[in-house]
């Protein structure tokens, strides 16, 4: 842990000005459950921290708007998970939050910070003893020939196979969410599917955000698929654990046939992973155990096993299949 200054800008403009004036050691913070944790591990060592959790309007949640759900980046996970009506209309979104972390963490953590949580790769978190391209570019990747049980089977590279660990972003990916950000260069809107990057040869760069860009809100287009949705998460214990495999799915049916399907995978890939080919393959099909399994197989096509994580390919297939059958019951 290293000394740092802590300030609370009064407006978004102030926050952006302050971060632009600083260098890479200047960082936003909201709930601090990712950033402080990594600071205590000496994996992150910012010198200046700008608390954006109480900026005006940043914690607003609005579901009354006819076109979209709006989640302020500063809203707590618990506030979204318990927001009136959301569980009935978008169970996948609520389940993704409910099944994440612990009650204490959900009370602290913000929806914007959640999107930017960093990998749980133990070699990354373990510090200087271990080679890690993400923490120390060019040092190698200890996971590639190491304990990779929890590492990605999709989207990895020869430089990094770290899983994107979050749940919320996976559910958002299934619903075509977008993220409104604002930086020195002005505001812009990024599709959530383009927020996170695969590691390629630069695993230290995790998102498409510029350093001075502040996430203001997340917007989710309203859709009738919301009701027939689920976030199915398989983990090593019943609570307080990251996904071994998870699937956010949503369905629109014509009788027994699928009219439209959404499938996104969590816990398996280096970023929230939308399985579009699997979705298209389902359209027009009668949904049953066999077609659900086929969708799972399509979703995991191209997955690459390492040393200890091969079982998660089959687990991912079954998770998608089960999720589709759960969602079907909600139609």
């Amino acid at each position: 842990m290293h000394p740092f200054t802590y300030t609370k800008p009064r407006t978004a403009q102030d926050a952006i000005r302050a971060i632009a004036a600083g260098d890479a050691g200047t960082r936003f913070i909201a709930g601090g459950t990712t950033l402080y944790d990594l600071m205590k591990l000496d994996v992150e060592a910012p010198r200046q921290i700008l608390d954006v959790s109480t900026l005006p309007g940043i914690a607003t949640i609005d579901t009354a708007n006819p076109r979209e759900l709006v989640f302020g980046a500063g809203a707590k996970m618990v506030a979204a998970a318990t927001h009136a009506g959301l569980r009935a209309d978008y169970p996948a979104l609520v389940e993704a939050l409910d099944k994440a972390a612990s009650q204490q963490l959900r009370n602290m953590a913000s929806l914007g910070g959640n999107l930017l949580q960093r990998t749980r790769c133990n070699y990354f978190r373990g510090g200087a003893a271990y080679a890690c391209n993400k923490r120390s570019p060019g040092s190698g990747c200890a996971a590639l020939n190491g304990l990779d049980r929890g590492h990605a089977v999709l989207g990895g590279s020869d430089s990094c196979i770290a899983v994107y660990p979050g749940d919320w972003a996976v559910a958002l990916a299934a619903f075509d969410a977008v993220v409104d950000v604002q930086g020195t260069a002005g505001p812009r809107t990024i599709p959530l599917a383009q927020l996170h990057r695969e590691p390629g040869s630069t695993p230290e760069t995790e998102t498409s955000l510029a350093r001075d860009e502040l996430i203001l809100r997340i917007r989710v287009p309203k859709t009738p698929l919301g009701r027939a949705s689920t976030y199915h998460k398989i983990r090593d214990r019943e609570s307080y654990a990251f996904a071994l495999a998870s699937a956010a799915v949503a369905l629109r049916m014509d009788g027994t046939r699928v009219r439209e399907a959404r499938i996104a995978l969590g816990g398996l890939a280096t970023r929230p992973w939308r399985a579009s080919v699997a979705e298209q393959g389902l359209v027009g099909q009668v949904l049953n155990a066999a077609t659900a399994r086929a969708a799972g197989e399509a979703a995991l096509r191209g997955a690459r096993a390492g040393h200890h994580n091969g079982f998660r390919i089959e687990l991912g297939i079954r998770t998608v299949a089960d999720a589709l059958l759960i969602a079907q019951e909600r139609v």
Partner: protein
Amino acid sequence: MTTNTFPDVARIDAHDKVRGATRYASDDSRPGMLHATLACATIGRGSIQSIDTSAARALRGVRLVLTHAELSRLQPAGFLLAGGYGVQSLQPLTSPNIAYFGQPIALVVAETLEVALQAAALIRTAYAVEPHQMGLDAPEADIVAQQESPLPKPMFEDVHVGDADAVFAQAAVQIDATYASAVQHHNPMELLATVAEWSEGRLTIHEGTQNAEGVRHGVARQLGIPAEQVRVISPQVGGGFGQKNSLQGQTVLAAFAARALGHSVKLVVRRSQLFHASSFRAATRHRIRLGADHGGTMLAAIHETDAQTSRHDLFPSVNAEVSARLHGIANFRARERLVRTDTQTPGYMRAPFEHMACFAFESAVDELAQALGQDPVALRLANDTQRDPVTGKPLSSRHLAECLRRGAARFGWARRSMAPGSMQDAEGQLIGWGVAAGAYKAATAPAVARLRVYDDGTALASVGVHEMGQGIRTALAAALSRKLGIEPDQITLDIGDTNSTPQHITVGSWGTATAVPAAVEAADAMLSALAELLPGDAAGRSPAEILRAAGRRSLDVAIRRKAPGQPDAVFTRLATGLPAPLGPNYPDFVSFSYIAHFVEVRVEPTTRRIRVPRVVSVADCGRVISPRTAASQVRGGVVWGIGAALREASEVDPRYGGFLNADLADYVLPVNADIGDIEVEFIDRADPLVNAMGIKGLGEVAMVGVAAAIANAVHHATGIRLRDLPIRIEHLM
């Protein structure tokens, strides 16, 4: 002998604990106190070539940085199992040698914890790296046959009765299987923490420990001062489980720094450091051969164990002590081997040997039942014994058969269909029902008890024992209250403090059987002494009334007590902080506690998650002194068993050494949502031989056999026999 049962009373410190009012060493804060933290090695083995602490020392607020350069003159405290006091023989910071990943290399003391942490991160170390070895598949040179090792005999002698090899070879039905477990770490809520304070040449140590007397004598030896100048205070331990059973590496560092600085110093070992700073449950591998006739009589068994130890110590392996006693098997041979690894020395973690020994053996018994087509409860009942199979001596008491019968009835075992995979619930989940037995030695340690009653109706009791959440304060208060007629909240218990009576190590489930009979004996002595104050006139009067009638303000008694058959020399060991227990082998009998666990698992048909909705455990621990805390002990033991069977593993990357998942998020302990119904029942029958109150022990037997019952249930649900712990989703895919 007490024959009636004890009432169900609440834990006397329950409210304090729930409100967070109970203070532990790491909560301590006193004027002028400085904060210390450790910096640790990042190589698997080797030595420090140079260590640059200049940046750390230059930091504002840093008061002291210690490395091996400053501490090389500390005297060794010795390893607990080699006649010493330490959790291992190696005291970090006394040499440049690095024996294992995570070994502390420097201590930083600063005015605030934040500065100490920052300074520790500024220390730069250059190492000469040597190869290290982490696993059980080690070269021959790293494998030690315990029988031929310097470990004392007969204590660590391989069990050998009859001719197991010949009888096994001839047996009509043979099971031959190997079982194993990963390393596991204790993770009590309370971290290892020491607050050291000097005053006029005397050292006071506040530390949660299960062995205040051992810490006192060990640290005195390390510092080269008389033990009389050291006081260790441990009124509450925030979870021990064997981790805090001896002198830890951090204690002397805090004491040394506090003396050098003239200020009290607090040193908390962080959670990530805990995985390398203290002991752990060794990785073990067990080959079990079990032979029976067609009728199901177990004729012979061979139990061969490879257990991990460190390169610098021999941590013994005593697995067959219990596996040879579970059933009446006439021919038994064990071979215990130790495998040297480059880790800190492993140690005692709740049911340290018994958990895995019984996992292996009771899995093999289940495999035998399967091979014979017999019901696993019936098979165990048919092989019961009332004589100790190893020594031929009588057993002080053994009600395992009754545990099995009562457990089976309560669980509804009769409704179990025999074939694996034959039971399902309405949602298509596979149901598995498994059973296993467990046993744990009933040992006893010597104790001194002092009791004082006052004319205002209060009392003060001192006895050697530590409260670590097991509820010994509640049990002591209940037993004393019943004898003396003084309300429990009027009795002050002075335990875990070396200024009180000698504080013998509280482990091995001997705490209650040691301390409660001693306290009650003191109470009996008190009643006699009170009667003498008012000859012929004491009957029907409370102690306070007698004192007032006799014009006395208070009255003191003291007694000392040892295990049946122990020589008086044990009191010298007691007084010098050395372990002095006896059991399970007493001169005239052998004594064990027993338990039977019945477990239901549900296995998801697709993603193969295993859940444990229901456990029934019936224990024979002799007389139950404190029913509420006893039941809570068993539930805690079952939770540990669920963790050990289905969750916990310390991950080892052999390239680096050490343990990789060193935090509470990544070391997968069970959480509340993992735990279903746990029903606990006691035989509650006093043991006639082991002590006057008929108490055996409970804390560890509680978890023995749980893992086997779970694995047996998983087999019953799925037909898949899993012999390596922990069992996880991938093993059923």
